[in-house]
């Protein structure tokens, strides 16, 4: 059985794991690193439940090989909490009832954070297109968009230009 040893940084921590060459980063994160917040909804890049960032870029971890994480920086939903405090997006998802079942939530949070990192003041349309790679079947997206708008506003207020 052939395999690879991967040395990578996940949510700021140095991590090493071994896996078969063909294993996806999604499977490795879930089954080898124990980051079960990364969800699988399709395995084909169509639902966004497995969204993570790789060197700051938003990707579907089901479409990335675990071996590709070698030497790079991975952020998952577990990495959003900073200094024991929820990220404003996390706070706003709760206070705006932007989740019903919550299975899509980790992916939406990672995708929304990636948007706000790039564009702190997105329009509604920009939010909708930035999140179009993430499926939510429960909410009709209404409260998700509102939560992102509200988080963006709070974050702008907290960080004077």
């Amino acid at each position: 059985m052939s395999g690879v040893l991967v040395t990578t940084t996940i949510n700021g921590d140095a991590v090493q794991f071994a896996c078969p060459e063909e294993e996806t980063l999604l499977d490795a994160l879930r089954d080898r690193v124990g980051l079960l917040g990364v969800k699988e909804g399709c395995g084909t890049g169509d639902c966004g439940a497995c969204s993570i960032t790789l060197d700051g870029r938003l990707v579907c971890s089901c479409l990335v090989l675990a071996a590709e994480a070698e030497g790079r920086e991975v952020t998952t939903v577990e990495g959003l909490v900073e200094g024991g405090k929820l990220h404003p997006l996390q706070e706003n998802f709760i206070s705006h009832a932007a989740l019903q079942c919550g299975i899509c939530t980790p992916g939406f949070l990672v995708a929304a954070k990636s948007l706000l990192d790039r564009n702190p003041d997105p329009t509604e349309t920009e939010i909708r297109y930035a999140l179009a790679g993430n499926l939510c079947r429960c909410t009709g997206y209404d409260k998700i968009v509102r939560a992102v708008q509200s988080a963006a506003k709070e974050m702008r207020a907290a960080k004077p230009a």
Partner: protein
Amino acid sequence: MKHDNSYTGQDFKVIGTRVKRPDGIDKVTGRARYGADASLPGQLVGRILRSPHAHARIKSIDISKAEALQGVKAVVTADDMPVPQGLPGDLAHMLENSMARGRALYDGHAVAAVAAIDAKTARKALQLIEVDYEPLPHVTDVDAAMQPDAPVIHDWIYTSGVDPKPEKPSNVVQRTEFGLGDIDAGFAEADVVVERSYKTEATHQGYIEPHACLANIRPDGSGELWVTTQGPFVYRNVCAQMLGMDIAKLKVTSSEIGGGFGGKTHVWGEPVALALSRKANRPVKLVMTRDEVFRASGPTSSTSMDIKLGATRDGKLVAARAEMRYGNGAFPGIWGMLSCMTSFACYEIANCKAIGYDVVLNRPKVAAYRAPSAPMAAFGVESAMDELAAAISMDPVEFRLKNASREGGQSHYGPVWGPIGIRATLEAVRDHPHMKAPLGPNQGRGMACGFWFNIGGQTCSDLNVGIDGTVTLTVGTVDVGGSRASLGLIAAEELGIAYEQVSVNIGDTGSLGHNDMTEGSRGTFSSGMAAIFAARNTIEVLRERAAKMWGIPVEDVTWEAGQAVAKGSAHGNLKPLTLKDIAAKSPKTGGPIAGHNEVVADGAGVSFASHICDIEVDPETGATKVLRYTVVQDAGKAIHPDYVEGQFQGGAAQGIGWALNEEYIYGKDGRLQNPGFLDYRMPVCSDLPFIDTKILEIPNPGHPYGVRGVGETSIVPPLAAIGNALSNAVGVRMHHVPMSPPRILKALREAEREAC
């Protein structure tokens, strides 16, 4: 103790506030554990081999090579899942649906399964299983399946509900009929009659979390199942019976559930996972792929309908007839029957007849999907209503208002209406600013109504008071969309304490008596009722304890705003005792303080909705964009308005997807051609506008707080609302759902040709 469930009209302190849900933090940090997120020592990976044929005899299955593969610990086929003696018919069907028995009945039907040390080995093992199929003629279209020359799928189906009883088997399971009056006389009275045929394609519930479970059967025959389900107690009963186990020996724990919408009321791979675990004598985790979810777990019916409505010139609906043919997939269901019961519920029609046919097809077994069967019937009826209104030059809202069902009226399917909200939702629509907003070219506005029964059912809950005065409410209904928050509010309201003092716990099958599924919009309605009664039961105990502490008769103790108060001038100097005071002394006054309730939650109030939508059609591509959407629905009483709105919005979005894009596409070979999210296109964020909501509160007399179920009705109106908007936008009337770009383009071209 028997409690009174009638509406009391009390003033609320915390009910109706928008508190934070208790499970929110776990769900935004990735800590919440769903179906695929559990493990046990020594667990194996389960995988299922599925039929590539729509219909085939299984001549033989050779599992020897797969069994010999290193790392494979068990291979099962139907031989390992014998039908236990006395298994009820519907469970036998579910069992055969879980694992084919001699015949594969649809593309995706399970034929064998393996458990191996890892996913790679399991996948390899599946390839080593040799199945010798003899393809048989198949049928996937509901109209074709009813033809006399159609291949008969089951030789044991003789249509019920027809006279004389048929002599030959067919694909028609049953004919059902509901109605009132004399439709021939009714149509004779009509000045204008609209008669149309409609078709709707099958859709999938589309929950983002695939079916997943972790089964663990021990050598002594006892076991446990961790599973994403809408009903752990029902799964326990069903699985235990299917596998010939004692019900008490199987403990089922529901994981957090990543969406269900009806699709997780039914077992699919769970009995297979249990059978694998039993054979391997190891825990087995079985997670479906998305392809499997589409091909082998419950979609809706595909339908074909004929609707005929008649009205007088002054706008009175005098007659209605509907004949609705509903595909059931490979096993009998009641979907056509449900369509009959919902079809005409919005209106008072003296003469009406709804006829439903349930038809088996070589498709996956149909499961409930949010207000099951109602959206399709409403598409037909509400489209025809608009055409009829136009034919008598009446405003469609006024026409509906004039004929809306009313309190005291006789429904066509049985009950006499209590206080109902159809009229109020229509009035709210009529007066809504949305109705007056300007529209541009190729834009149109449509509206439609919808109905759903809602159900109550068996429910059981416990309320325990900790020694510090905090409260744990345990319920047996799964939280599919925020019900923990609503139930916490209810317990807080009853006890007169803060919401933050209450924790809500979803019990497993070992911790409570039986609870029916979270389905039929019953979660908050029925567990809410059980929570109210359990809390009232607790208050009795609290009063007794306070009386004991004070040494006065319990009759002199009342419970007010979270504390025991001694009544009467003799006790004037007694300081009220808080929940905390009483709890702290509980070890000395009689032990733990708890309240319980077991109830069949009768009195579920029906729910009506009216939706408005604006759309724009691109005449070049036939693509439709939803510009604005408003949902008006009667909630009875909104316990937590955020989650009520969420139900309205989510249902509307699913209905929009159904109306415009989603469909099961079968090839001539009877195989599903689009089993993935790329080709089965559900609405994404950029497809939708904000979905405005208006909650009406017409109390349900059968619930102490007036609650009605709110989860389902919202998916009923969108199909017709969008069809009506389309007709107003571009002048073509669509009779086939989804109204996808190619279908709209075709209709536009035909209309152009006719105009030349």
